């Protein structure tokens, strides 16, 4: 008896059976695809969503260092013994020098020039000719000079023709000689581009782009008259001295300049440093009169100190702030999404553990230096300690320390491979937890052990179990800490938590229904299609067919349409999966709004991976085919074994 012949001679029955099974198969494939995707997404969401608790600087006393330590310890112990806490990370801070790497300056960023952010790349040295000097009430001197020679200046700065600086007698010894007009001086210190600050101020005031500010449009002529008029209109208070007026050509907007601001045109300031002469152990200020060419001056033995200063300054210019972390994605800026990984990857668990020499840079620093993922940079760690020591309330943009060879240990040098780039939405801002784009991230274990963990918001991440933030805050209150001691960042987890749970349930429901449907279809198939063969089976048996022959016949009779059905179902599922997911998840669908929410939350979309689903469909189809075969084998055996089956209808 040929099962194929039997099937083809009743095509409508066969077709219907195939359609029933293929529908069940496709439904099962799709629903299991959705089920597993949703499960996977939920798991990934649990893993990727970081609920972060960070010390709230508003509620936290940073000013006195002993108080800070106590408060910090209280915070730490409160965070560590808490059931809602997953992990506590204290990030480390250290400076690193990289001679081949040129740091970014805020001056290169339109309208963001802030001299204090350019530390320590702002060290500069000039040879100048004094044009004017005035004594200050405290006995120091305010000096104006023309720049004769640039000894040291970060190439990011624009060179101005005039330099202003003040200095005083730092050694406290014999009276210092007053600056002499017309003489040349070597001055070293922190550089501030006054001209740019002025332009930035004017651009802001007249609301125009920086490059449209034209300082030649400053006019001093009408200043006296203007002041008179303003005074007559009652603007007496806080008006100060008006030395000039600036008119923006295009818009006609005007603003006034003080006498000091007028001085800033084409001028830079330098802030000399007070250093200690290691030979005499006496402080001195970095301004000196030189009466010979610079090279000759520096070669002379008594001026070795100056040669050293300039050498160290070059190194300082290549100093970078480094954050060592045990989990980069828990850093405040990443959790707040003001920083995010734009290329490459974060560190792996193994790298954190072993302190692998890998690093993550800002995209901008990489572009400026022509670096790519996989390149290496050399880092010489130096210094340690709180970068904000002198600014207790500062909570952002840690800067590298000044470089001195004594601060560095040759052993702390290494080649670091770049594994990722981060991008910031507001670099050079003073917002909480922010860092400058010069900041380099490395695994904490790759930093020297002396790297500090400053008591600052930026350096403590308490990672909470997702959905447990309220419980954490409650227990913080119970421990006697102020309620706002911690600020919670959940990156939107609370918002999707409910829909996440519901969608997992919803997908589970679909999956269950599809299994029931599949089983029902299989039973219908067996009892209303395959069982219909029992009369023919009786005929075969009565004519002498053995039970083996009958079983084989039944098995093939059941398997051929079922196999076709699985193939068709698989095809349907492959073709219809995306449409089904779209439909079930589309906002308009009344089927399940929770699934829709999950699908539309951007982070989940990427996780429901198409290729994974496709291979899943193939797997489920294969499993179904296998289950079918097992069922049919069992069924045909039972049918043959059923006693007296072949005497039905014989008489």
């Amino acid at each position, binding site marked *: *008896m040929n099962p194929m*012949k*039997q099937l083809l*001679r*009743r095509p409508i029955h066969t077709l219907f059976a195939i359609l029933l099974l293929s529908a069940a198969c496709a439904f099962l494939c799709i629903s299991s695809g959705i089920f597993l995707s949703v499960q996977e997404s939920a798991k990934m969401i649990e893993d990727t969503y970081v609920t972060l608790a960070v010390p709230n600087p508003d509620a936290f006393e940073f000013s006195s260092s002993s108080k800070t330590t106590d408060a910090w310890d209280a915070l730490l112990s409160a965070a560590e013994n808490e059931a809602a806490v997953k992990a506590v990370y204290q990030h480390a801070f250290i400076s690193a020098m990289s001679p081949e790497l040129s740091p970014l300056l805020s001056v290169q960023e339109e309208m963001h020039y802030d001299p204090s952010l350019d530390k320590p790349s702002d060290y500069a040295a000039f040879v100048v000719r004094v044009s004017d000097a005035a004594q200050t009430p405290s006995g120091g001197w305010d000096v104006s000079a023309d720049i004769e020679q640039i000894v040291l200046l970060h190439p990011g700065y624009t060179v101005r023709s005039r330099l202003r600086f003040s200095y005083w007698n730092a050694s406290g010894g014999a009276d210092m000689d007053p600056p002499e007009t017309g003489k040349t001086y070597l001055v070293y210190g922190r550089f501030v581009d006054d001209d740019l600050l002025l332009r930035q101020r004017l651009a802001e005031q007249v609301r125009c782009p920086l490059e449209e500010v034209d300082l030649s449009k400053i006019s001093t002529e009408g200043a006296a008259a203007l002041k008179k008029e303003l005074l007559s209109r009652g603007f007496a208070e806080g008006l100060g001295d008006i030395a000039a007026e600036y008119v923006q050509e295009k818009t006609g907007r005007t603003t006034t300049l003080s006498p000091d601001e007028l001085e800033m045109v084409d001028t830079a300031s330098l802030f000399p440093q007070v250093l200690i002469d290691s030979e005499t152990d006496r402080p001195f200020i970095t301004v000196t009169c030189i009466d010979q060419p610079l090279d000759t001056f520096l070669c002379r033995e008594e001026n070795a100190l100056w040669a050293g200063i300039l050498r160290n300054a070059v190194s300082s210019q290549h100093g970078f702030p480094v954050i060592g972390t045990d989990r980069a994605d828990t850093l405040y800026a990443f959790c707040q999404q003001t920083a995010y990984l734009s290329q490459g990857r974060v560190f792996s668990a193994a790298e954190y553990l072993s302190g692998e020499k890998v690093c993550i840079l800002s995209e901008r620093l990489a572009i400026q230096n022509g670096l790519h993922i996989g390149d290496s940079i050399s880092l010489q760690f130096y210094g340690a300690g709180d970068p904000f020591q002198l600014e207790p309330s500062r909570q952002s943009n840690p800067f590298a320390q000044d470089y001195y060879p004594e601060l560095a240990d040759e052993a702390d040098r290494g080649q670091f491979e770049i594994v990722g780039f981060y991008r910031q939405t507001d670099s050079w801002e003073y917002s909480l937890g922010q860092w400058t784009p010069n900041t380099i991230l490395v695994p904490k274990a790759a930093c020297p052990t002396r790297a500090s963990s400053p008591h600052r918001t930026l350096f403590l991440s308490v990672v909470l179990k997702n959905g447990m933030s309220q419980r954490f805050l409650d227990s913080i209150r119970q421990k006697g800490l102020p309620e706002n001691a911690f600020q919670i960042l959940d990156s939107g987890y609370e918002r999707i938590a409910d829909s996440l749970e519901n969608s997992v349930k919803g997908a589970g429901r679909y999956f269950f229904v599809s299994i029931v449907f599949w089983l029902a279809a299989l039973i219908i198939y067996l009892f209303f299609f395959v069982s219909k063969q029992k009369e*023919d089976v*009786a*005929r*075969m*048996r*009565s*004519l*002498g*067919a*053995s*039970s083996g*022959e009958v079983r084989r016949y039944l098995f093939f009779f059941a398997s051929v349409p079922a196999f076709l059905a699985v193939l068709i179902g698989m095809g349907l599922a492959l073709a219809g999966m995306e449409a089904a997911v779209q439909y079930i998840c589309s906002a308009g669908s009344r089927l399940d709004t929770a699934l829709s929410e999950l699908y539309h939350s951007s982070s989940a979309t990427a996780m429901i991976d198409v290729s994974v689903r496709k291979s899943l469909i193939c797997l489920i189809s294969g499993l179904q085919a296998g289950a079918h075969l097992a069922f049919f084998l069992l069924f045909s055996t039972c049918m043959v074994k059923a006693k*007296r089956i*072949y*005497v039905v*209808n*014989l*008489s």
Partner: protein
Amino acid sequence: MAKIQTIDLNFSYRAKHQTIHAVKDVNLLLEPGLMQVIIGKSGSGKSTLLSLLASLQTPEQGMILVDDMDLQKMDADQYRRKRAAVIFQAYNLFPLLTVQENIIYPLLLNKIPKRTAETQAEKVLEQVGMDASFLKRFPATLSGGEQQRVAIARALANQTDIVLADEPTGNLDTKNTERITGLLSSMAHNQGCCVVVVTHDLSVAANADRVFAMDGGTLSGVAP
């Protein structure tokens, strides 16, 4: 040359609420070369006895000896395939197979080559009075008498030495009844088959070498 003997043969149908004792203490000797007819009222157990002889059911008590061998100890499939051909009261043709395919089915079970089987099918069909044009038709398109004759042809084609026929002429006209009766008796007489025919038809009984009568499951008489 098969001889069949039943010894105290008993069989009951067991349903939920009642037991029908369809065959009671039947002792019977069926001999080769004879056409033997079983007659009896409807429900007297004739078909049941035949299905026991065909090894389609197993006796409850007693035994069936085929050539002095216990039928229950023989391979039932082989017995039905090679020794005993059954012509069923309800024809039992495969509805989805053509006349030809129906007839050659038992031959193919016996591993007879398809071509030989097909020639054989044509021959037996002719013997029951149907021409080759019927070969490709399906049972549903045949009249009752034609279906019955195909069923007979299928039993004859296999050339077994036992032929068990249950009402083989129930749907046939006089001419065809004569033909079939002649065919069955020639198988007994010329080929030495042991032919057992259950019938209500007295004209068939008239051609029998021996007639058994059944009543209420027991053998009530033998003639001659």
